[in-house]
């Protein structure tokens, strides 16, 4: 391979953390005008490699060449100046700043030495219009949904990238429409000769957009291939080091029989979600579909008591219950994996073990501590069962890779042996192997008689495990699909129909 083709080269990059060798002499070459997918299981070292390339981490060894010249970005500011724009895995924008300020932080247009807010806002609106986003750019970023924040982060990185654009799981919280838009932009940049690094766990997207693929496993380079020459099966084998037993079966589960165990009537909260009726049987998975901001997360939060419902009633087995707080819900054997794991899920400084036992301990009350031996047993059990990649159970959870954090939170709820489990985007950021495992897990939980509500932006996945699907639009429940109607097409149609109605 000619060095001149390579816009960015990383040679023998080493990076170790206490107890972990995150990168072990990894080579990586990015060519001009290519989309290069960087793949691997959770914890393989993808994010770490990115951070070493952009100076967010100091690498322990190896060199980085940009346009054939050795560079050494000391921090992301340096990297930006070199023309490397990056979207990091967790949304890394500042929620307290306005959208426009987030977009132009550090390079605000100035007039007479002062920041020209009007020009900045105008440019921000222009920039976002490319993404079909019409926002009030002077509002705080925090007032927008995760998805919108993600688009803003992408817009910022694209605007910053003169030579290289790095996207670390940018599509995790985006729906099909936004993904398509993102890809249009990526193709345009590619045509302009930029090199683009793209990390994702969605293999369809890899095949749709990428030219080459590099796979990492356990911090080591497995290999780089041309996408066209690598079929899916081989790719998965490269990633997990073995053949995946079976891919997600497309046939959906059969509807459960019998009386609904959980009955919500006219349930809702003003300003968050319009009152809805919902029945869930034992051994049933209710999938929730909808566009971004349609109110899926709100539905989950109201059901779990994270936001108290202000209308309607909830019944379990015909018995009225008050789900006024998460505690009350947990007492009724509810569980809830929130979508935003960074702020609502993980307790960063605590160990993996403590994160796993947290909900169980909270339910037992502080006077009845779970013995250390029992904690260790639970932690080890779930670390093994969910294949959580961690050096040991005492590692602070914030040091785990994103996907492994997600699994640990799932473990937290499984440890409480819930009867009603709400999963908001449980597979976000989870690798193919683990993805299949989680889908299998959902099915086995259902078979054991648990009731589940699963929110996902991946329609295929919803089809795979849902026995019924509720479609949301504009913070209201608008359609319900059951039985034979649970197909990807039908769901898309239901969402689209809703959309059309909105337009008219």
């Amino acid at each position, binding site marked *: 391979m000619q060095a001149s083709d390579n816009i960015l080269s990383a040679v023998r990059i080493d990076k170790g953390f206490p107890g972990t060798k995150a990168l072990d002499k990894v080579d990586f070459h990015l060519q001009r005008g290519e989309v290069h997918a960087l793949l691997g299981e959770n914890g393989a070292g993808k994010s770490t490699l990115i951070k070493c390339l952009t100076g967010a981490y100091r690498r322990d060894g190896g060199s980085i060449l940009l346009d054939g010249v050795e560079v050494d970005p000391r921090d992301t500011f340096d990297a930006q100046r070199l023309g490397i724009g990056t979207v990091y895995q967790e949304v890394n924008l500042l929620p307290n700043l306005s959208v426009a300020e987030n977009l132009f932080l550090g390079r605000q247009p100035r007039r007479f030495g002062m920041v020209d807010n009007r020009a900045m806002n105008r440019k921000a609106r222009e920039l976002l219009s490319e993404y079909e986003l019409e926002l009030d750019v002077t509002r705080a970023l925090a007032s927008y949904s995760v998805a919108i924040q993600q688009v803003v982060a992408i817009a910022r990185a694209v605007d910053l990238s003169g030579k290289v654009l790095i996207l670390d799981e940018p599509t995790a919280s985006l729906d099909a429409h936004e993904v398509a838009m993102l890809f249009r932009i990526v193709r345009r940049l590619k045509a302009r000769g930029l090199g683009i690094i793209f990390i994702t766990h969605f293999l369809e997207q890899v095949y749709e957009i990428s030219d080459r693929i590099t796979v990492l496993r356990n911090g080591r380079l497995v290999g780089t291939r041309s996408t066209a020459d690598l079929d899916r099966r081989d790719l998965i084998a490269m990633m997990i080091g073995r053949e995946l037993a079976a891919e997600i079966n497309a046939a959906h589960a059969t509807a459960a029989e019998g009386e609904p165990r959980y009955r919500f009537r006219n349930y809702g909260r003003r300003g968050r979600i319009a009152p809805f009726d919902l029945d869930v049987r034992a051994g049933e998975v209710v999938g929730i579909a909808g566009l971004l901001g349609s109110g899926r997360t709100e539905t989950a939060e109201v059901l779990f008591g994270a936001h108290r419902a202000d209308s309607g009633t909830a019944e379990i087995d015909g018995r009225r219950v008050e789900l006024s707080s*998460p*505690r009350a819900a947990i007492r009724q054997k509810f569980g809830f994996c*929130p979508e935003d794991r960074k702020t609502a899920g993980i307790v960063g*400084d*605590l160990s993996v073990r403590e994160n796993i036992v947290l*909900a169980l301990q*909270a339910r037992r009350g*502080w006077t009845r*501590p*779970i013995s250390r031996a029992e904690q260790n047993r639970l932690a080890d059990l779930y670390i093994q069962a969910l294949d959580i990649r961690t050096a040991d159970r005492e590692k602070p959870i914030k040091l785990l890779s994103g996907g492994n954090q997600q699994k640990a939170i799932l473990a937290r709820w499984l440890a409480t042996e819930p009867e009603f489990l709400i999963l908001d985007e449980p597979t976000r950021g989870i690798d193919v192997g683990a993805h299949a495992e989680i889908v299998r897990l959902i099915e086995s939980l259902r078979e054991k008689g648990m009731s589940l509500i699963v929110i996902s932006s991946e329609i295929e996945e919803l089809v795979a495990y849902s026995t019924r699907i509720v479609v949301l639009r504009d913070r209201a429940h608008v359609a319900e699909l059951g039985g034979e109607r649970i197909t990807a097409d039908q769901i898309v149609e239901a969402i689209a129909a809703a959309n059309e109605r909105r337009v008219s």
Partner: protein
Amino acid sequence: MTSIVRTYLARLLPQLIALAAILIAISMTFPGFLNLEIQNGRLYGSLIDILNRGAPVVLLAIGMTVVIATKGIDLSVGAVMAICGAVAASFITSGHSLFETLLITVAVGILCGMWNGLLVAVLDIQPIIATLVLMVAGRGIAQLVTEGAILTFNDPGLIFIGSGSFVGLPMPVVVWLVFGVLVALLVRQSALGMLIEAIGVNRQASTLSGVLTPVLLIAAYMLSGLCAAIAGIIAAADIRGADANNAGLWLELDAILAVVVGGTSLLGGRFSIAASVLGAIIIQAINTGILLSGFPPEFNLIIKAAIIVFILVLQSPRFRTAFAFLAIPRRAPKTTEQEAK
């Protein structure tokens, strides 16, 4: 078991080293410093003075540790000390029994803590400001009780708490030792410690996991109030009078400093009561050392600041990573062995 002891010691190592260094430094400038003798059936010496004089800050630091672990801070403890000292003095002088007096005083302290806790947990006011309210008003309340004068008392029981001794140790030392052990056992033998740490690190995630966040927050401030009450009783008993104007003045800063010297982060989360107690003792050792040194008082603050900065710099994450390099050679052979296999 031994591994638990070892992790415990490892956690306390920086504080122990700092304390040892300070004690050595003092004993070099003042030779009689380490002498201990038995006098009137009690231990007597500068080391005992440090433990004894440190009592209020140690007690405040115990409560402060828990509050800080929840990502809070309690600026009102000095004022609560004054209130409780005043209450104790006024009850004992108005003829109540020692038991009643202590009970009421402790209740008042807990009440003060509850007030703070309610502001923080229920009204969602930022801890510094929430407790600032009581810091400002509290001393006024204490003065209201004593009417600005020093309320002296002669009750031998109450005085005993301040200057009596038990198994050779001054009573304040016994009180904080026992209380510290009790609190440490309470938080570590129950699940409280972990739940408090969880709240401190991520309140939202904890609430969503079913942790009773508001109650635990209020409880943390109540504990801090209780600690302040005991500290207030000791401070009053020590001088046989309640000095509402000066009791506990600026001690909140010393207590916070003690917690930080003890290595607990002001951002909440992981905490260690034992380390905070050591931190408080370190600060008292500095104070006592300055007094023994015979420098003119103009220099007190500068010396204290310099030593504290020095200790904190040694403890700072940057220095610890540098220190960790020294520790690596011990582990390195093991990794190479593993790789060889």
